[in-house]
């Protein structure tokens, strides 16, 4: 099983019934798997803020939800995460590509690589980094932690996890 298949399997274990998504090239294959799963209502959106708020609205039906977006998109929706989710203390679980790391040699990702974690720390949004296949089984525990923290919780997927070691 590859990382995408394992993550999808864990989301099924959690009981996710709605996934709101906007892809970058790293999370795209996961979104493809979600789209093909009849047990999950897939909501493709036009902007990442829609994804986190659609997932937030679904919370109030008692159904499990997730937003799947890219790192650049996460930066665009911090205002909504702060003024909706922090303001009202509503959890939202976000799966996000972790761009701009030492092994991601895309020049347009370099700011994301340096400023995303300090930004999350400034907002006090908790996060967890998944860096290897054997860590994917922690997703149900991270999901529960997101509910307990009552705020946005970011699960980062690294390049090493999704695409293997860059030096191999």
């Amino acid at each position, binding site marked *: 099983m590859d990382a995408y298949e394992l993550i999808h399997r864990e989301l099924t274990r959690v009981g996710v019934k709605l996934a709101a998504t906007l892809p970058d090239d790293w999370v795209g294959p996961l979104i493809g798997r979600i789209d093909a799963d009849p047990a999950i*209502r897939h909501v493709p959106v036009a902007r990442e803020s*829609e994804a986190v708020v659609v997932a*937030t*609205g679904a919370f109030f039906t*008692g159904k499990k*939800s997730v937003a799947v977006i890219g790192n650049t998109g996460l930066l665009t929706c911090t205002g909504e995460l*702060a*003024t909706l989710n922090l303001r009202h203390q509503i959890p939202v679980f976000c799966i996000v590509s972790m761009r701009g790391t030492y092994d991601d040699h895309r020049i347009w990702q370099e700011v994301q690589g340096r400023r995303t974690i300090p930004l999350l720390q400034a907002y006090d949004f908790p996060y967890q980094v998944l860096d290897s296949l054997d860590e994917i089984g922690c997703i149900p525990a991270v999901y529960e932690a997101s509910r307990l923290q009552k705020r946005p919780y970011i699960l980062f997927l690294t390049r090493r996890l999704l695409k293997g070691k860059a030096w191999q």
Partner: protein
Amino acid sequence: MKTRDAMRVIAAHRGDAVAVCALGMASNEWWQATKSEETFYVHGAMGFAASFALGFALMAPEVPVLLLNADGSLCMNLGCLLTEAQQAPQNLKHFVVDNRVYQTVSAVPMVNRGLTDYAGIARSAGIPRTLTLDNVPDLEKAMPEIMAAPGPYFTVLRVEAEPSYLEVPPNDYEGAEIKYRFGRAMEKRLGVKIFGPSGY
């Protein structure tokens, strides 16, 4: 038509619908008209009450859902119309209070004031049923059809800009209290558990 009158008419016809209010004057008027706790009053995220209502409506398809949006909010998230059209929730009725100003900041005129046909944008986005109304008798007449027809149904309410929004205060619940009041109401209404045994 005044916002207050429009909210009263919708409230009278709402039946057992759940509501989501964008921040602003219409939200305050809805609270005054209904005192409803089966309503989520969004404090922030201007533009995204539409996305909140969509996520709720999709996962509770048996519940009629009213979205009380505003023109300023809609303009901050016009993309919501594409998503709403694509998902086509039959239980969602989307109202836009169109007063052409940012009422809560001293009625500062909005971008493109009065020139934009929001119902036309919604139709072009793929929402099949749209309506624009500017008076109370027409709204009274239209409400039974709006409530009975399958959604998404998009209705623009052209209302007068008013000098002060503070004449009608918002509800006095804090952000987390709104979450718990609405969440507990939905637990009873839907027969589900939203919060666990430890309250989160």
